[in-house]
C-alpha cells in the first residue's frame, strides 16, 4: 500500500463510511470524498487508459481539469461515461468502471498501439489509407473507428428527469473560494441580489485545502462561517454543485446544477440535473487558477500528479497520494506542497527545482536538487522512481509519486467565450483575461492574484465597486488578517530538457512534445492548426492542463513570445454538460406542446384515430366495427359524404377577426384577389402571395359587418399568416386603421357536408338556410335552437353542399353531439382528415401539398383570380417576372391511370412515354394522390410542364423509389362535379 488514508485530518466524515465499487472490486470511503480521493485512499492508482496508445493512467488533478481519471458511473441506462473521478461525489453504492481497455484495465491489448507510436504521429492518417480505394471503407475506417472514443454511451432511454430554471440577480459570483466568498459577502451585505455558484459539492474553493490562518480561524472555519452568514442573508442564494458553463450575450450565463448525481436512488420528484439560465446584471469570475503541469519525460504514469492536487488530497480529504513523494517544481508552490505533505507525515523524496537559485525554503531535511530536470520515470502501471538529470549527471530517485508544479494558469475560460482573446502577461508568465466590459469582472487568482490575502482583498474590492456602480451603498469593511504567506512566483518552463521518454502535453489525447514539433515542421505552427493537427486540447478536458503548455512550446520552438502564439479559442462548455440537462423537460411525448381542438373529446368518443398535424392532433378517420384498414374507413366516409352527409372538425383552421374602417382596404392589399367590395354576409376564397409572387396561403374571407371581417387560414400557417398580417399592418401600412385578433381558440368549427347537409343543419338553426336565403358563399350570424349564437358559412372543401358552423368552443362537443343525433336519420357519419383529403383531391382543391412555396397562382389554375385591376397587393410586382410567367412552367393537372387498377403515389415524377429517365427529361411530379371511392380508381393532382395544354396526353408516372411505372392520362384536376351542381344544390 502506498497511497492511503491519513490517520487524521481532512473534511471527510470519518464516521460515515460509504461502500462503492471500482471495476467490480468493493472499496470504501467516507462521506465528503470524491471518487478519486476514495480510490487513492484504497491505493487504486491505475484508473484508465489513454485514448490513442492506451497507456496506463492515474489521477492527475483534484478537480474539473482532470484528463485521465475518467470512469463510467452508474448502471444500465443510467450510465454516465467519461465521468471525472476527481469531481464525482462519493455515495454509498456508487459503481464505477474503467474505460477504453480490453480485456481489462491491467492487461489492455490496445496498449500495442504504443509500439506503433512512431508511425502514428500527428496527422498520420491523412497521409495513408488511400490505396486501394475500396479498402478505406472495408478495412481502414472500421479499424480507425473501433479505436474511437473513450467511454461507451448506452443510448437507451434515460430514466432520469431534467428541468430548466431561470434566475435573475444583480451579481453572479462564479467560484466560492476566498475571492468569491468575500465578494458575495460584500455584495450580500450591501443588499444586492447575489447568486454564488460553485461546481464543487462543498463551497469554499481552495480554502478547503488551505492551511494558512484567516483571522483567528483555520481557512475551513472561515469558509464555513462565511457561508453561514451568506445563507442567513435573504438576498443571497448559494448554489453548490452548479457549474457555470457558458457566458452568453447580455450577461446571460448557462449553469448546470447536479441535483441528484450524488445519490444512489434519485427521488422521483426531483430532476437529476437542472439547467439554470442566469440573467445577471453583473458577474464576478472568482474561478481561481489552475496549476500548470510540467512537460517531462515519462510524465504520464499513475503516480504523477499536480503538486497542488496532492495538497488537496492530504488537506481536504485526508489522503496521501503516496508514501514517498518527489516534487518537481519551477516555483514556490512546489515547496508549499512539500511542507503540507510533510506536516501530514508523508515523506518527501526530493524537491527537484528547475531553477538555479530560488529563495524558497524546503521542509527541514528535504533534499533540493536545483537546476534539475526529470527526464524519465520508472515503473509500469505505477510510478516507482524518477530519473533526474542535473549538469549532465543522471540520478534515479525512488519514490511512488511525484508532484509537479509548473506555475499557474488563471481560469479565464468564461471571460473569453465571447470573442475576447486572452492576453499574455510577461510579468506573470501566463495568460490573463482582457477587459471584457463591466458586465463581467475577474477577481482573485483568476485575475492573477496568488496570495490568499490578495484574493480576499480583490474579491471584496471588486464587489464593492460593482455594488457602488449599481447604486448600492457599501460600508467599509475590514478584511480578515491572513497568516504569513509568500507571493508564489515561478519561472515558466515549457519543456524539461533531456527527456528520455515521451513527454506528454495533452495526456488524454496522447499528444507529446514531438507531435507539436512535427506539426510545426509541417507548416501547422499556427496555434489553431497545431491544435487540429495534433488534437492537443481537443479531449474531454478541453486543454485545461495542456493548452497553455502547447502555446508555450510553440513559442519556445520558434523562439518567439507566447504572446505571438496566443491561445486557441475558448468556447462553451467550461466542462461538458449532459444533453438531457440542456433539453430539460422537453423530451418524448413532451417534446412539443400539444394543441387540442375543442372537439377532441367528442372525436375520441366517436372512435377517432388521431394524427399529428403541426402541434394539433386531428382525427384521421373514424373506424367502425369490422373495418381493418384506414382505407376501408376512409372510403366509407367519403362515399357517405357524397351520398348522405358527414361531420368534420375544422376547428384547427386559423381564424382571425379583423376590425376597423380600413379592414377591407387592408385585406384587399393582402390577398391577390379582390376583397374590397365583398358584401356583408358573404364569404370568398382568398389567395395570399408572398412578395416574390409565389402563393403563401389560402383561406376564406367573410364580411360580418362593414368594418368586421373574419378570415380563415390553413392550419399549418395560422401563426405565420397572423404574423404576416401584423407585419403588414404595423410596418408596411401603419396608417391603415385596422385591428385584429386571433380567435382560433374561441370557436369550435365543424363542416357539415353532403347532399343532406341542409336537412341536418336546418334542424338545429332557427334562421332560414334554404338555398335562396343562404346561398353558396353566404356567411352570417345565426341562432341555434336553444339560444346559442353561432356563425354559419356556406363554403365547401369537399365539393358537396356544405356548411361550416362555428360555435363557442365550450359548447362545441354538445353541438356536435346534437348534429350527430339530428343527422342519424340522414345517415350522418363523422369523417376525418383522410376522407377530407380524398374529397378535396376528387374536387381538385389544393392544399400545401400543392402550394409548396414554389407555385404561382397560375400554376395552380388560379391565374384568373389574380386581380389585374388592383393597384397594389403583396406579391403583385414580382409575380410578373419572366421565370414566373414562362410558358414551360409546371401547371397543375389531374392524372388518372390508363389501367384502372394501377396505383399512383405522390412524389412520383412524370416522363414522356418512351423518354429515358433523366433530370433533363423530367416533366413534373405528383403532388397528391389517392384512391377515389367515387370513381373507383386512383386519381392524382400533378404539376406538369405546360400541363394545361396537355389534357388527354398519356404520360409515364415514374416512381423508381417504389420500382413502379404507370401510364396515366393527363386530365383536368376536377374529377367530381366539374359544373359545381352539388355545391350549389
Amino acid at each position, binding site marked *: 500500500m502506498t497511497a492511503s488514508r491519513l490517520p487524521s485530518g481532512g473534511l471527510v466524515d470519518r464516521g460515515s463510511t460509504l461502500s462503492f465499487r471500482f471495476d467490480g472490486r468493493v472499496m470504501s470511503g467516507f462521506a465528503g470524498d470524491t471518487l478519486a480521493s476514495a480510490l487513492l485512499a484504497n491505493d487504486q492508482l491505475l484508473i484508465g487508459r489513454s485514448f490513442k496508445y492506451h497507456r496506463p493512467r492515474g489521477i492527475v488533478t483534484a478537480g474539473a481539469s482532470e484528463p485521465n481519471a475518467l470512469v463510467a458511473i452508474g448502471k444500465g441506462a443510467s450510465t454516465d461515461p467519461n465521468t471525472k473521478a476527481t469531481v464525482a461525489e462519493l455515495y454509498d453504492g456508487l459503481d464505477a468502471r474503467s474505460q477504453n481497455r480490453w480485456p481489462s484495465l491491467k492487461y489492455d491489448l490496445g496498449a500495442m498501439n504504443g509500439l506503433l507510436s512512431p508511425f502514428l504521429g500527428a496527422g498520420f492518417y491523412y497521409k495513408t489509407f488511400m490505396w486501394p480505394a475500396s479498402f478505406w471503407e472495408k478495412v481502414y475506417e472500421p479499424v480507425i473507428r473501433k479505436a474511437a472514443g473513450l467511454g461507451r454511451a448506452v443510448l437507451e432511454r434515460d430514466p432520469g428527469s431534467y*428541468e*430548466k*430554471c*431561470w*434566475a*435573475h440577480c444583480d451579481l453572479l459570483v462564479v467560484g466560492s473560494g476566498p475571492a468569491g466568498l468575500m465578494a458575495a459577502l460584500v455584495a450580500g451585505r450591501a443588499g444586492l*441580489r447575489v447568486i454564488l455558484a460553485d461546481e464543487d459539492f462543498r463551497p469554499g474553493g481552495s480554502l478547503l485545502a488551505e492551511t494558512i490562518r484567516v483571522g483567528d480561524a483555520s481557512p475551513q472555519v472561515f469558509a464555513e462561517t462565511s457561508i453561514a452568514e451568506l445563507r442567513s442573508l435573504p438576498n443571497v442564494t448559494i448554489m453548490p454543485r452548479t457549474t457555470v458553463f457558458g457566458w452568453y450575450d447580455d450577461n446571460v450565463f448557462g449553469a448546470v446544477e447536479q441535483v441528484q448525481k450524488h445519490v444512489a436512488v434519485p427521488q422521483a*420528484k*426531483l430532476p437529476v440535473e437542472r439547467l439554470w*439560465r442566469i*440573467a445577471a446584471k453583473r458577474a464576478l469570475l472568482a474561478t481561481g487558477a489552475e496549476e500548470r503541469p510540467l512537460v517531462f519525460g515519462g510524465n504520464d504514469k499513475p503516480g504523477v500528479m499536480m503538486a497542488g492536487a496532492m495538497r488537496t488530497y492530504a488537506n481536504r480529504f485526508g489522503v496521501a497520494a503516496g508514501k514517498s513523494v518527489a516534487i518537481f517544481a519551477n516555483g514556490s508552490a512546489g515547496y508549499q506542497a512539500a511542507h503540507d505533505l510533510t506536516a501530514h507525515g508523508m515523506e518527501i523524496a526530493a524537491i527537484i527545482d528547475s531553477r538555479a537559485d530560488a529563495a524558497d525554503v524546503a521542509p527541514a531535511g528535504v533534499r533540493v536538487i536545483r537546476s534539475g530536470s526529470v527526464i524519465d520515470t520508472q515503473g509500469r502501471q505505477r510510478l516507482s522512481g524518477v530519473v533526474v538529470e542535473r549538469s549532465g549527471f543522471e540520478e534515479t530517485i525512488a519514490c511512488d509519486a511525484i508532484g509537479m508544479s509548473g506555475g499557474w494558469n488563471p481560469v479565464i475560460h468564461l471571460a473569453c467565450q465571447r470573442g475576447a482573446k486572452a492576453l499574455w502577461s510577461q510579468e506573470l508568465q501566463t495568460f490573463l483575461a482582457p477587459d471584457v466590459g463591466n458586465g463581467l469582472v475577474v477577481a482573485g487568482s483568476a485575475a492573477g492574484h496568488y496570495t490568499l490575502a490578495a484574493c480576499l482583498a480583490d474579491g471584496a474590492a471588486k464587489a464593492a465597486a460593482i455594488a457602488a456602480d449599481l447604486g448600492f451603498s457599501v460600508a467599509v469593511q475590514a478584511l480578515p488578517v491572513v497568516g504569513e504567506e509568500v507571493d508564489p512566483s515561478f519561472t515558466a518552463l515549457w519543456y524539461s530538457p533531456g527527456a528520455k521518454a515521451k513527454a506528454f502535453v495533452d495526456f488524454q489525447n496522447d499528444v507529446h512534445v514531438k507531435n507539436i514539433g512535427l506539426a510545426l515542421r509541417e507548416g501547422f505552427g499556427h496555434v489553431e492548426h497545431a491544435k487540429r493537427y495534433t488534437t492537443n486540447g481537443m479531449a474531454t478536458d478541453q486543454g485545461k492542463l495542456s493548452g497553455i503548455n502547447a502555446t508555450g512550446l510553440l513559442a519556445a520552438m520558434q523562439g518567439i513570445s507566447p504572446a505571438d502564439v496566443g491561445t486557441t479559442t475558448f468556447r462553451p462548455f467550461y466542462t461538458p454538460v449532459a444533453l438531457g440537462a440542456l433539453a430539460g*423537460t*422537453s423530451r418524448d411525448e*413532451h417534446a*412539443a*406542446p*400539444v*394543441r*387540442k*381542438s*375543442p372537439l377532441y*373529446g367528442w372525436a375520441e368518443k366517436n372512435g377517432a384515430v388521431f394524427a399529428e398535424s403541426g402541434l*394539433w392532433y386531428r382525427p384521421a378517420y373514424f373506424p367502425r366495427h369490422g373495418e381493418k384498414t384506414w382505407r376501408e374507413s376512409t372510403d366509407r366516409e367519403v362515399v357517405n359524404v357524397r351520398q348522405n352527409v358527414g361531420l368534420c372538425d375544422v376547428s384547427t383552421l386559423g381564424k382571425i*377577426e379583423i*376590425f*376597423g374602417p380600413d379592414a377591407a382596404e387592408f385585406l384587399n392589399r393582402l390577398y391577390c384577389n379582390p376583397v374590397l367590395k365583398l358584401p356583408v354576409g358573404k364569404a370568398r376564397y382568398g389567395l395570399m402571395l408572398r412578395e416574390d409572387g409565389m402563393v403563401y396561403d389560402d383561406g376564406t374571407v367573410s364580411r360580418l359587418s362593414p368594418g368586421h371581417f373574419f378570415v380563415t387560414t390553413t392550419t399549418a400557417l395560422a401563426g405565420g399568416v397572423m404574423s404576416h398580417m401584423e407585419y403588414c399592418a404595423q410596418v408596411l401600412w401603419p396608417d391603415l*386603421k385596422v*385591428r385584429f*385578433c386571433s*380567435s*382560433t*381558440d*374561441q*370557436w369550435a368549427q365543424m363542416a357539415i357536408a353532403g347532399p343532406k347537409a341542409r336537412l341536418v343543419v336546418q*334542424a*338545429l338553426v332557427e334562421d332560414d338556410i334554404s338555398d335562396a336565403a343562404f346561398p353558396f358563399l353566404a356567411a352570417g350570424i345565426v341562432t*341555434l*335552437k*336553444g*339560444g*346559442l349564437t353561432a356563425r354559419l358559412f356556406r363554403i365547401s372543401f369537399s365539393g358537396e353542399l356544405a356548411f361550416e358552423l362555428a*360555435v*363557442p*368552443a*365550450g*359548447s362545441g*362537443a*354538445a*353541438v356536435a353531439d*346534437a348534429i350527430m*343525433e*339530428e343527422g342519424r336519420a340522414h345517415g350522418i357519419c363523422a369523417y376525418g382528415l383522410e376522407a377530407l383529403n380524398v374529397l378535396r383531391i376528387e374536387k381538385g382543391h389544393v392544399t400545401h401539398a400543392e402550394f409548396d412555396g414554389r407555385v404561382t397562382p397560375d400554376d395552380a389554375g388560379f391565374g384568373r383570380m389574380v386581380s389585374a385591376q388592383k393597384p397594389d397587393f403583396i406579391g403583385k410586382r414580382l409575380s410578373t417576372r419572366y421565370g414566373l410567367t414562362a410558358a414551360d412552367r409546371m401547371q397543375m393537372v389531374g392524372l388518372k391511370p390508363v389501367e384502372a387498377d394501377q396505383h399512383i403515389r405522390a412524389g412520383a415524377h412524370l416522363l414522356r412515354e418512351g423518354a429515358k429517365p433523366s433530370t433533363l427529361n423530367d416533366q413534373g411530379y405528383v403532388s397528391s394522390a389517392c384512391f377515389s371511392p367515387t370513381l373507383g380508381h386512383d386519381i392524382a393532382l400533378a404539376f406538369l410542364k405546360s400541363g394545361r395544354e396537355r389534357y388527354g396526353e398519356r404520360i409515364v408516372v415514374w416512381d423508381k423509389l417504389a420500382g413502379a411505372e404507370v401510364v396515366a392520362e393527363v386530365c383536368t384536376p376536377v374529377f367530381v362535379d366539374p359544373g359545381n351542381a352539388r355545391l350549389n344544390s
Partner: protein
Amino acid sequence: MTKPYISGHALDARIPVESGIRAVDHLEVPREYAVALVMAMEGEEAAVGAGLAVAGDVSLRFIGPGEWLALSQSETPEELHRNLSLLLADNAYIVDQSDGRVVLRLSGPNVRRILAKGIGIDLHPAVFEIGASSNVLCGHISINLSRTGENEFELIVMRSFAESLFDDLRLMGREFDLSVDFSAQG
C-alpha cells in the same frame, strides 16, 4: 330541439371532479370566467385604458399597446361584452374570448420557484408587483401572466394549449407536491 348546450371546460379531462386535496402550493382552475379582448381604436388607447380602469367588477390584463384582456367572474360572457360595449364601443373593438382562453390560478410559498422553471422574466416581488400583467412564454407556450396577490399569480392560456400548460405546471410543481383542483363553485 331546444335543449341548451352544455358548455365543457378545457381541463375536464385533466382535473378530477372535486379532488379536495389542497397542498400549500396549489393550482386552482376557476370554471366560469368571462374574458373579453379589448382593442382600442387608433388614438383612443389612453381613453380606453382610463375607461377600463373604472369599469366595475372587471380585472384587466395587459396584452400589448392598446390591448387588454378584461376578466370578470361575476358576469356572463354576454354581460361582460354588453357592459364593455356600453362603456367603450365608440373607442374600442371588443371580442368575446371566454371560450378561447382558460384561466389558472397558482398560489403558495413556492410559486415563484415553480414559475421560474418556465418563465424567463424576473418575478422578484419588488420587480413584478401586485397588479402587474404581461404576455410571456411559459416553456413553449404563450400565456398571459399576472400577479394577483402576495404569492398568487394568474395564468391565461389559449384553450387549445390548456392541457399542455396544465401538464407543464404539474411537472414544474412536482418538487413542491403542487395540488390541483377546480375552484369551489361560486
